[in-house]
């Protein structure tokens, strides 16, 4: 399969991104382009700078150097909602769920559907539950909108977190280790969801340690090591062995 937007405009473009935390240089001179409908695997060992990079794109951190361009425009995110407003959704590794609320409440957290009664706006429980059920259906997850997240399995929680990204018309979805804590069958489901996103022209960045997952769904793999981008290759031109070597540093760059 061709990478969808090889000729088109990248949805996300990073230019010379660097980030320092005091004396620690977490990222240095990272350039990256992500095109619509493309799945990019972001790999690297712990401390390689993956998370920092994701957090810069998601608006948690501001880069020390460099520029982030989204849809061709330079963007500056001060908070995660700013990133979400332009169409960047993140599935966090710890999923960012409130255990004491229902699945539907978590999906709509921060952007509840409301109905107006005169000057007051009340939650539209019915509409939210219906939409959440629809989203869980799309994810093929047996999750009831009214169940508390506290009582759910790892896969169901993952579904709730992913369903959240489907509420808006996101152009870029970043997933931080979405397959780390779930069963084999559920990994299958998450990967097929990534395929579905891709079909819709959504760009996906998959941050993962699991080589098979990356090679199953990604068009391109980007390897980070010691805060720098060491490789950016089409998945057809590389192999798990080469990527492993790049991650560990056995091979410096490719």
């Amino acid at each position, binding site marked *: 399969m061709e990478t969808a937007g090889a000729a088109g405009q990248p949805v996300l473009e990073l230019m010379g991104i660097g980030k320092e935390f005091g004396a620690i240089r977490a990222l240095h001179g990272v350039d990256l382009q992500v095109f619509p409908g493309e799945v990019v695997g972001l790999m690297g060992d712990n401390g390689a700078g993956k998370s920092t990079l994701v957090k810069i794109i998601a608006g948690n951190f501001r880069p020390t150097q460099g520029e982030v361009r989204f849809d061709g425009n330079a963007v500056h995110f001060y908070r995660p909602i700013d990133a979400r407003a332009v169409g960047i959704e993140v599935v966090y590794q710890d*999923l960012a769920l409130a255990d004491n609320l229902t699945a539907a409440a978590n999906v709509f*957290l*921060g952007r509840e559907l409301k109905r107006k009664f005169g000057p007051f706006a009340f939650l539209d429980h019915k509409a939210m539950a219906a939409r959440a059920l629809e989203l869980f259906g799309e994810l093929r997850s047996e999750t009831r909108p009214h169940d508390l997240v506290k009582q759910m399995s790892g896969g169901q929680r993952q579904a709730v977190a992913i369903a959240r990204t489907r509420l808006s018309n996101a152009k870029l979805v970043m997933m931080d280790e979405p397959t780390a804590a779930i069963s084999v069958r559920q990994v299958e489901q998450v990967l097929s969801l990534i395929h579905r996103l891709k079909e819709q022209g959504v760009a996906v960045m998959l941050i993962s340690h699991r080589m098979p997952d990356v090679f199953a769904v990604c068009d391109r793999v980007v390897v980070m090591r010691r805060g720098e981008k060491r490789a950016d290759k089409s998945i057809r031109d590389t192999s798990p062995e080469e990527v492993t070597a790049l991650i560990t540093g056995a091979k410096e760059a490719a």
Partner: protein
Amino acid sequence: MAMPLESPISFANVGRIRWWQRGIFASQTGYVLLALLGLLIAMHFASPYFFTQGNMQNVAKNFSFIAIATLGITFVIITGGIDLSVGSMMCFSAMITSMVMSGLSTPGMPGAFLFVHLAADGKTVVANVPGLILLVSILAGLVTALIVGLVNGFCIAVLGLSPFVTTLGMLSIVRGLGYVVSNGRGSFPGGPDADYFYALTSGDLFGVPAPFIYLVILAAVMAIVLHHTSFGRHVFALGGNEKAAELTGIPVVRVKIEVYMICALAAGLQGIIISGWLGSAPANMATSYELNVIAAAVIGGANLAGGVGGSLGAIVGCVLLEVIRNGLVLAQVSSYWQQTLVGVIIILAVLVDRIRSRIT
């Protein structure tokens, strides 16, 4: 961008949660409510005076005296915070209200000419607009409470101080201010509007004590706010997982400040009502009431770790405390036992909930 379904979703592997395993039936509030009903029945057989109209009115009035503040602190507890300044706040609001009322009703005091004039006999003070002094003085008390709540919320949400330390400090600050403004003497509601004041705070409507009516209205409003508005949803989310709340774009700082303002406002209103019943606002009024209020909230099912609580629970907790107090009096048990028993009940209520959540 709806994606087509290959087949409708089935729930082959996920059982449905039964009705008795969810909502109020699976909450501490439910169990305590059950215990309360049992206690009421036991009291009926133990004492023929318990279910008399007079005693019921007393009970209703007495628990209403802490229940409104309990509603307020429940918001704070749901977010995982705590407010120790409610007792002092009750006193200070009541004091400001009665001082403003007396001040505006005394010809010669600054601003008083706007509100009162002397009658022809040169002694009787007559209000220019009946009820206006009452309105202004109650507003003064409530605005004071809001300011204190704002300071609490600012310190906790913006400066990041711990709620316990901030409100412990505020407990002392506000109590001290109360002594300062009244010179330690306390103050009395006075002037032409004092009768309205007493009617509104310690009067009754068709035999139902006024504070109880306010309580029911406020509890209903609170239940709607908690469960049917996005503010309420955010309050719960904040208590469940503050980081998630922040990542999903909930205005965490604003919600936190708002809950402390609501709590202080409820405490202020409560204090004003208590002062109407006492007939004065002494400087040591409502000392250590914060502990009763927190105890009532916790017994009713609010979780100090955050994320759980509600208006029904707050009321149930207050009623239970008051019925026990009342029962001990009717049974002629030394009232010194009351505090001991309250402590036992706090621990029992939380223990039962812990055992239940282990079983299911």
